[in-house]
């Protein structure tokens, strides 16, 4: 049952990727979609330079506003981030983010020894907040050229999702770009390869330690309309939820931890059915 639900989640992730990256012509011609829907943000880390992208990555959009000459803060993008966060929290990471799907699939590759967390997990888990503050908010706004324009630091130097979904497909299909490949591209591909290798060994290392979008949505987990509750009358504190949780969360103690990506493994494993989501409760009530 739990395995079936896991497969269902992967199909849902793939379907959402297809829905938000439906400009197939872009992949064939090495060009990107230029319609008005790109003024809207999609929930996940989905680069707007991906040839198929029909919307904008919220982190990319936020940086494009912050490093512009016209604005210093963005009500618009913060509005989208808050809206997605208030509705779903990190359900976005577990179900709607394309780079999350890639890491999920890589983790399925067999390896001699899988580890739940990377060494230094206790401290590394806070690194995503450093990335958010430094690379997404501060550097693009503070370091500007003589014309007042900044750079999208996170997208330029870190984001492996942009390399995978935009950089590689565009460079592979667009001869003009092939001539411009240099050190930065090699750096970004190296980061992508490293992230990929670590994803085979450990579950979603990018989401756990680096992703600024996950850092933002994590804050909304306790208050989002979609959240988890543990029924104290049913819970026997057997820790089955913690054992199955690949994000290493004490679910029975912290069902709305900022680390939880709402994959649902804990809900499906709990022998007492003590963990439920607000959606489960609503559907259950309607059935009655």
């Amino acid at each position, binding site marked *: 049952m739990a395995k079936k639900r896991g497969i269902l989640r992967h199909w849902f992730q793939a379907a959402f990727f297809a829905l938000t990256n439906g400009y197939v012509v872009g992949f064939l011609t090495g060009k*990107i*979609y*230029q*319609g*008005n829907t*790109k*003024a*809207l*943000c999609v929930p996940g880390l989905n*680069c*707007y*330079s991906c040839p198929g*992208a029909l919307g*904008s990555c919220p982190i*990319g*959009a936020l940086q*494009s*506003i912050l490093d*512009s000459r*016209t*604005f210093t803060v*963005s*009500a*618009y*993008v*913060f*509005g*989208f*981030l*808050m*809206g997605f*966060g*208030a*509705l779903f929290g990190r359900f976005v990471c577990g179900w709607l983010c394309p780079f999350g799907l890639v890491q999920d699939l890589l983790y399925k590759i067999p390896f001699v020894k899988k580890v739940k967390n990377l060494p230094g997990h206790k401290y590394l888990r806070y690194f995503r907040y450093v990335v958010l503050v430094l690379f997404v908010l501060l550097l693009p706004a503070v370091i500007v050229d003589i014309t007042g324009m900044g*750079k*999208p630091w996170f*997208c*330029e130097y870190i*984001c492996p999702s*942009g*390399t995978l979904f*935009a*950089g590689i497909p*565009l*460079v592979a299909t667009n001869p003009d*770009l092939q001539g*411009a*490949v*240099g050190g*930065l*591209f090699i*750096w*970004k*591909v190296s980061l992508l390869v490293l992230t990929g290798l670590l994803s085979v060994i450990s579950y979603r290392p990018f989401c756990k330690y680096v992703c600024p979008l996950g850092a933002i949505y994590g804050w*909304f987990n306790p*208050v*989002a*309309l979609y959240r988890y509750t543990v029924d104290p009358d049913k819970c026997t504190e057997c820790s089955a939820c913690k054992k199955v949780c690949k994000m290493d969360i004490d679910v029975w103690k912290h069902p709305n931890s900022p680390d939880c990506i709402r994959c649902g493994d804990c809900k499906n494993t709990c022998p007492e059915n003590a963990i439920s989501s*607000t959606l489960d409760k609503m559907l259950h009530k309607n059935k009655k």
Partner: protein
Amino acid sequence: MGIFLKQNWKGVALLCLSILLIIIGVLRGEPATVLQKAIHICMECIGIG
């Protein structure tokens, strides 16, 4: 509806605030800046620089 709001008032309040922020952003003309960036290949994002 009353129970739903009582149990989810923080989420609903944040959702209302998010809609307000988006409206403010639209009135300030921010979507045009996002669109302008998003319809051109972002050389930095793809690692060309």
